[in-house]
Structure formats: structure tokens, C-alpha cells
């Protein structure tokens, strides 16, 4: 039977080729987990390529950051940790640290000091929110709007989102309580400093949901950072929430008729953790990479490719021009003073406590 023969040949060929993989032993290899897309690309250019050139270590990129906590926990339970360095936001990093899933870092011995000799702990300052977290960038979640759809009255405040009279049309929000609840209260007249106290009460939670109720029919709920740029490019929404780097790329690189609102944007940190329980050899390599990738120059270099602010104070003056577009990047940083003035700081402890509860309420409200 010809067919059987073909199958047999294919089978043996496939087995041989898979066995061939067994031969290539890779010890000088590390897996770095990140978010993918332009963000990973910026890390590739600013960190991975120079590091590989310097040390000869092959860096594999895994775009799994959005499920990192779950996967790290599973890896830890199964005692099979395949990642060496992981890029996560501050809140998950704190959770991982609390659970003992991430390695504790001593900034002054394990991280490079600033060029002028300032120790890393001072250079990072307040950004060191957890013992395990090595901050990398400051980003913010903010709103972009279609300049051609808002008429002569471009919005300047985050509360434009709740103003469907002046700005009729769809808007996109994330389908999670974090950020959306804060914005709702902020635009319902709660002072920035009181928001988390109000949100801790039943009445405050109902108040936030009631405010969101007023625009519920006009909202497209999204789950990832890439949705809003697509929706804005389609003109499917008139304004929408996403990360400022995404909006920068939409506006400056893709030349879409979109502008950004620097008001009420929620500031957050993103950085590295090293999983706990690596073999000494892998841990040493991971630490070596971290030492290299978070020094002053490297952090400033990343800002050439994406508009996120370096987490070191000493990197800020070194931020230069965009690698392809040649525009000055400093004014596009969420850490630039004029952008920072109306920002809003996330309270990590609050969300650690209330996330499960508020999420259940928020999802029930969404499904109503």
C-alpha cells in the first residue's frame, strides 16, 4: 500500500528530525519573559542585543507576562521553573514576592550604581516598592481620542469619558475594576486623595458603579492593551483607555488622527523579577543580566524605542531622540513634569485586599 509507506517514511523522518533536536545542547541560554509587541522589541534592542553581544548568552523571548503570576505559581508547585527573568507590573511583583515565588534583591549589591556613584537604592528611590522588584519603567494608563471626531472642543480632562453629551460616541474601557472604579469616583467629584477610602466602603463601590452605569451603553469593554489602538484606528470608538506607549506609537509612528489626554492617568511601574528556586548557575546569570539591563544607560536607551519613562532618576537626563523618528522623547515620558502634574497614583495595598471582591461585583455588574 503506497499510502502506508508514505506514512511510515514521514513518521521516521519526523522522529529522526525530532531526535536531532536532542543533540543541540544549549547551556548558554536564558529565557526572558515579557509582554511582546513593541515593548519586547524595545527591550530586545536596548537590553538583549547588547547583553548577548557582550556575554554570548542566547536570549529567548517569551511573551507570557500577562499570565506570569499564574504560570510562575504553577511552575513553583511543579518544581519546574523554565523562566530566568520575568517582566511584570508592580502589583503582581509584590504578590509574587509575598508568596515567596520571587528572589529578594538587595539593590545596593545586586544592581549597578548610577554613573556618579549614587547607590541604586537611592537612584531608584520610591520606585522600589517591593523587595523582589527591580523597576524598569514608569508607564501610565490613559485616554486617547480621535481628533477628527471630537469637533472643535478637544477633551482635556479624563471626565470627558463620562460626558456623553459633549462627546457622543463609543469609548473603550478595560473590563476590570482596577482604574475604571477610580476614574468613576474621580469624575463623580471625589477628591484624588479620598478615592481609595471611599472605594473601601460599600456605598463608595455602589457610587462608582452607578457612575459607570451612566455610560454603560456607550462602552466597548476591552481586555488587552492592543484593543484600544485598533478601535481608535478603525474609528470604532471616539476615545479609549490604553497604555501611553501604545498611544504614542499610534500617534507618532502610525500617524493616526489621535491625541492623548494627560489627566487622571494612572501611574504604574513595570520591572523585573527573578523567580525563586533557580539553580545557582542560572540565578547568577539572571542576576548578571539584571545588573547589566537596569543600569542608567540601558534604561535611558529603552526610551529611544518606546515612550515609557526610565525608573532611575539618573536616566532621565540621558533620554534622547526616538531611534527611527528622531523626535525628542523626553516630553512623551509619563515622568515628564508637565505630564506628571495631573496624574494619579495607584494604591497597590488597596487592590491586593479588594481585588477579588470588587472584581466579582464588577463582573456581575457588567453581566447585568
Amino acid at each position, binding site marked *: *500500500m503506497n*499510502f*502506508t509507506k508514505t*506514512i511510515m517514511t*514521514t*513518521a521516521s523522518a*519526523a*522522529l529522526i*528530525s*525530532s*531526535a536531532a*533536536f*536532542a*543533540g*543541540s*545542547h*544549549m547551556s548558554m541560554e536564558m*529565557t526572558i519573559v515579557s*509582554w*511582546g*509587541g*513593541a*515593548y*519586547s522589541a524595545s527591550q530586545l534592542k536596548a537590553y538583549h542585543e547588547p547583553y548577548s553581544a557582550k556575554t554570548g548568552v542566547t536570549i*529567548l*523571548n*517569551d*511573551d*507570557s507576562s*500577562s*499570565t506570569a503570576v499564574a*504560570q510562575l505559581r*504553577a*511552575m513553583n*508547585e*511543579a*518544581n*519546574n521553573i*523554565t523562566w530566568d527573568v520575568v517582566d511584570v507590573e508592580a502589583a503582581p511583583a509584590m504578590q509574587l514576592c509575598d508568596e515567596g515565588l520571587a528572589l529578594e534583591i538587595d539593590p545596593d549589591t545586586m544592581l549597578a550604581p548610577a554613573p556618579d556613584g549614587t547607590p541604586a537604592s537611592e537612584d531608584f528611590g520610591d520606585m522600589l516598592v517591593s523587595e523582589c522588584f527591580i523597576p524598569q519603567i514608569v508607564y501610565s494608563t490613559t485616554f486617547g481620542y480621535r481628533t477628527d471626531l471630537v469637533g472643535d472642543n478637544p477633551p482635556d480632562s479624563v471626565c470627558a469619558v463620562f460626558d456623553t453629551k459633549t462627546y457622543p460616541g463609543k469609548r473603550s474601557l478595560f473590563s476590570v475594576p482596577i482604574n475604571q472604579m477610580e476614574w468613576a469616583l474621580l469624575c463623580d467629584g471625589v477628591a484624588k486623595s479620598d478615592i481609595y477610602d471611599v472605594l473601601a466602603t460599600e456605598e463608595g463601590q455602589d457610587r462608582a458603579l452607578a457612575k459607570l452605569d451612566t455610560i454603560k451603553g456607550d462602552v466597548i469593554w476591552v481586555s*488587552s*492593551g*492592543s484593543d484600544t*489602538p*485598533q478601535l481608535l*484606528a*478603525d474609528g470604532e470608538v471616539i476615545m479609549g483607555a490604553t497604555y501611553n506607549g501604545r498611544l504614542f506609537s499610534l500617534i507618532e509612528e*502610525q500617524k493616526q488622527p489621535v491625541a492623548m489626554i494627560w489627566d487622571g492617568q494612572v501611574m504604574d511601574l513595570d520591572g523585573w523579577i527573578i523567580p525563586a528556586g533557580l539553580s545557582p548557575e542560572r540565578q547568577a546569570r539572571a542576576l548578571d543580566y539584571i545588573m547589566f539591563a537596569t543600569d542608567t544607560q540601558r534604561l535611558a536607551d529603552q526610551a529611544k524605542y518606546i515612550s515609557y519613562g526610565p525608573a532611575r532618576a539618573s536616566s532621565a537626563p540621558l533620554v534622547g531622540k526616538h531611534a527611527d523618528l528622531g523626535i525628542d522623547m523626553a516630553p512623551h515620558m509619563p515622568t515628564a513634569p508637565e505630564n506628571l502634574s495631573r496624574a494619579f497614583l495607584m494604591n497597590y495595598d488597596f487592590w491586593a485586599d479588594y481585588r477579588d471582591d470588587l472584581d466579582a461585583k464588577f463582573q456581575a455588574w457588567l453581566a447585568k
Partner: protein
Amino acid sequence: MSEPKNSFLSPFVFTLICMAMMGGLIGLVAGVANGSGPLGLISGALFMFLISFLAIFLRQKELIVRYSICFFLIIFGFLFIGIIGVFLGLILGWFSGWFLYWLNLGRYRAKLQPYLSAGQVLWHYTFRVICGVIFVFLITPILVVMPLSFNAQDFFTFTPEMLRFDPDGYSLKHYKDFFTNNEWQRSFKNSLLIAPVATIVSVSLGTLAAIGLSQSHVPFKRAITAILISPMIVPLIISATGMFFFYSHVGNFLEDRIGLDKNFVGYVKVILAHSVLGIPFVIITVTATLVGFDSSLTRAAANMGADPVKTFFKIQMPLILPGVISGGLFAFITSFDEVVVVMFVGSTNQKTLPWQMFTGLREQISPTILAVATILVAISIALLVTLELLRRRSERLRGLSPG
């Protein structure tokens, strides 16, 4: 030229009525669009009625009439709608010309049995149209994907430039990205390695088990069948987490105790996980073909001195091959299109195409995934057509008339 036999209408009147109805329908659509439905309906009907009347009455050559209808409608469309009108006029003109002669000359009966009643003929064609609509439903998303993969922008959007057929709106950059980007290349190769091997594992084990299952006296048959097809019915995300823990232990054992290469073990894990997912499809298809299998054939073979292995390959295998192939096809697709399990079980080295697409979609929307899809569609069309041509050739060689 054959006359409709049972019809109480002459073909002339019949054609006029049908054409007027078609014109009325189109007129209604256009009329609603421009404010007045009834006006559109009446003028459309009248228009088509007149054209058909003239065409039949003047008894001109078919081609001349059809060209002139086209020409007329193109001018008409251009005057009233613009460039798009030319396009619409061309389609409408071609269609109404064809429809006119199809009706008037009774071409609609040419390929049907002569004894069918008018109602049956009408149903025959209505049914074809319904099926056509369903095929359009099946295929449109793929047709939408293809032009978008040539988008010059990084979005899934038909830009104004694309709609104007401006060359600036199109580019090959997403194809270039696919062929030059290491991540895409690596994941493509991984998919090409993992899916076939997983298919072979599930087909070979699955076929054996299906043959066993189809014997007449199998204890606990129902329970065993239920267990074997369970991978299909457990929600994927649960399977993924459950298998993650299992394969981590397997992986640890293979790496630490036996000392196999980490990378190789990674592939083994993903391949085994995927073959588990593919097995239910093989079991279902192969048992289904075996239901109709005449077991006296194997007895006859045994009677004539063939050993069981020979019987299997020479007698049973060729007969159940269609079931095995379609089961294999399902198993292949399951592995080739699987995101959730591979993300849990595999590590970065085993990143498959769907995994890469998934991160591509979630983190940064990039039409590269559309380019990949287009390439895959092109390859599969080529494969399927080749297979069909080969089948026809072998049919001819064997002197069979096409079925």
C-alpha cells in the same frame, strides 16, 4: 430550445414577469436607500420589464442584447452613483442579461430531469441559492483576511487608500516580517514538527484502540469509549492546567533522572499533550468506519494463512483508510490550531504558530498574522487541489468514470 411542459404561461410572459420581479426587488432596495421604496419598486419593475420586452421582441442576437444591457446599465450607474456605479452596473447588467436568456430560452431546465414540475425546478434553484449563501458565509472571513494582509498600516482596517486601490495603501511588509522575523520562523518550524508527529502518535495508537473497540466482545466498552474520548469534552483550560502539572513531573523525571536534553524533553511533552487531544477524533472516525467493516474478510484472510499483521495491513487498513485519514486530519488541525495547552505545557523553545499568533493579537495587533493565514490558505488550496487532480488522474488511469 425546450418549452416548459407543465407551464400554463408562455415563456415570453413568464420571462417578463420574472424580470419585472427582479427589477422590482432591486428597485425596492435602491428606492428605500433614496427615500421612497414604492417608487423604486415600480420604476425598477418597469425598467426591467421594458428591457426584457424589447430584447425578446426585437429578436436580436443574444450577445448584442447582453452587451447593450451591460453598456446601458454602466452608463446609468455612472450618471447616478459614480465610479462604484460603473462596477454595480456591470454586475447587474451581466447578471440581468444572463438571467433574461436563462429564463426565456428555458436553459434552467437543460440539466434537470424532464419530468420535474415547475415547483420542483423552482425549489431546485432556490436550494442552490441557499447553499451558495452558506458557502459565502463560510468563505467570506477568509476573503476579508487576504486583502488586509497587504495593508500598509499595522491595523486590521480597510484604509481609504486601500478602498481607492491606491498602491500606497498596499505593501508586502507583513509578509517580509513573517519571512525575516526569527520568532515567526521558529514558531512555524515548531508547528511543522509538532503537529505531524502528534498526529502520527494519535493516529497509530487511536487506530489500534478503535480496532480493539470494534471487536464484538469488549468488556466495559462504554466506559472505555467514554475515557478515550474524554480529552474532547474537558474544557481546554482545565486540561491545560492539569496537564501542566503532569508534564512538569514527567519533564523533571526525564531531565534529571535520565538526563535527556531539556529542549528535546520540551518537544516530547508538547507532542504527547497534543496527541492526547487528537485521539478522540481518531477514535470516533475510525470506529465509525469499522462499524460497516465486514469481519468475515479478516477471517477469510486468516483462513488463507495470513498472519494478523499482514491481515491488518493488507485487508483492514486499506478499507478503513478513509476514516483513518479524516481522523488524522482532525488530529492534525487540533494540534496545528491549539493555543491554550501549548502555552502551559511548552516552554519558549516549543512556541508554535498559534501561540505566536495569540501573543501577536493580544499584545500588538499586527497584520503579520493575516499574512501567515493567507500563506497557509494558499498552501492548503494548492494541496487540496493537487490531491483532487491526482485522484481524478488515478481514476482515469483505472478507467473508472468519475463518480
